[in-house]
């Protein structure tokens, strides 16, 4: 994260270097904020995105800037690690599933895509 700032009592602004945390990572992290926040995402340049998290009206919980900034920062790191694991293990996961389930030749093949 490049910068985090308090816009107002209920709006928090984060500037993110997307060459460090790609859009996939940011999206997955933000997904869990959709219950209590409205999300505004502005792509400033090829490598910089600005995210504003605004607390939804009628939300009973109170959020401090420090807590949200700290949590969002940690979430980005966690989702980046998850992304690295998914990327590195994609092929072995496919091999594992094929080995586990592809030996049942007697299943009738229902065409799921065309119906």
């Amino acid at each position, binding site marked *: 994260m490049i910068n985090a700032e308090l816009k107002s009592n209920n709006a928090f602004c984060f500037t993110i270097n997307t060459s460090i945390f790609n859009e996939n990572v940011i999206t997955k992290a933000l997904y869990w904020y959709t219950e209590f926040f409205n999300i505004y995402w502005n792509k400033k340049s090829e490598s910089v995105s600005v995210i504003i998290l605004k607390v939804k009206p009628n939300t009973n919980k109170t959020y401090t800037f420090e807590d949200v900034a700290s949590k969002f920062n940690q979430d980005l790191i966690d989702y980046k*690690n998850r992304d*690295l694991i998914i990327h590195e293990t994609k092929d*072995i996961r496919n091999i594992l599933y094929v080995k586990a389930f592809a030996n049942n030749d007697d299943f009738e093949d229902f065409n799921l895509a065309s119906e």
Partner: protein
Amino acid sequence: MINSYYLLPFRFEKIGGQELLVNELGDYIFVPIGTINRIVNHQLNKKEDVYKDLISNFFISESPIPELIDNMATRLRTKKAFLDSFTSLHIFVLTLRCNQNCIYCQASSKDSSEALYDMNEEHLFKAINLMFQSPSESITMEFQGGEPSLPFHLLQKAVERAAELNEKYKKQITYVLCTNSINLTEKILCLCKKYNILISTSLDGPAFIHNHNRGKNDSYNRSIEGISKARNYLGTDRVSALMTTSELSMNYPKDIIDNYLSNGFNNIFLRPLNPYGLALNNTDWNKYLDKFITFYKSALNYIIDINIRGNFFVEEFTAILLRKMLTPFTTGFVDLQSPTGIINSVVVYNYDGYVYASDESRMIAEYHDYTFRLGHVTDKYESLFYGKKAQQIILIGGTEFIAGCADCAFQSYCGADPVRNHSTQNDMYGLRPTSSFCKKHKAIISYLFYLIHNEHDRVMPIFKQWINKNENEF
């Protein structure tokens, strides 16, 4: 010295000041905070204990394809063994009529005199024919309602017909009668004895809770009398009970468990209300869920202490989760399956002849929502179980790929529930951040992991016995 190694698929979560890692096979390991970062950045040293633990537990590998890949594949297949037999639980809603007035009724029951809510014989027999087309060698024929013992003639014909047809099909059939035990007559019990029918009854705890929940003054005494009669007739092990946690119940976890113990049960299923039927409109779900989690933790600890004192008493929902967390096997519990248990494991033949994807699917149909209606008992088996609607539902019913679940450390233990998503969020796919299903399971699984890690010596001997259902070790 930094070593090269290869990652294997795993997911993670922070619990109790540690990092919990869970791999594709459902095996888990706790490591100190910061270890995940070191693992994914390939900074582990071969000489570290954690390196050896991760290798031996299938989290990392020293070769691109692990030597034991076939072993891993077999274990993954074992975890999904419930798919082998396809639909095994066949629920027959013989009637919507009921003789109780439960405040949380999820089945939209009708007054006990309204016979137009009974299934007709032609539809019943067609439903039985469909059941026998299931590839599963072992099937459960479960009778529900309303109160399914009210139309006794239908219950009797259903069991007799199934037994007759089974002369040809040779399946292993388990019959279950879900009854409130209010009116278990000699005739009903005689049928249960003859066909080895299990009784699954409901008991919400002490009289003041049970009667309150049922809107009747004498319900508790009549249920206990019915349970006692059924036990004498069929044997204690042929009668099980299920409790539903109403808002009142949540203040009395110990009283409810003590009541189960005093009534001779050695298990309980702490079942929350579900957002269907009357319960949907009468409850503030966010508050309810928070209170339920507190209730569950309190009740579970009380039960653990009962076991420590030498009484074998199981909390069944916990036992289901523990089997998934601590053993290589799966369970038949429909709610916690991926691909989703609806259609794959359960189907419902409703009183009006329509076929639904699950018990909850037919409940929302009573509110004119037919999203999960697969067709009619007069339709062909293939069009019901493999038709367009079934495919639409199942294609979005996998924790392995839906948003929020795909990255979740508890993926292997949890399940996908498109019906609940639809019912509570008006979207079969669902949004996990606001899903009560997700919140409940995350809270409970996290708590079980917390107990396993932080109170290992206290809980593990008991949890192991619950998994093995080994009463003799007490």
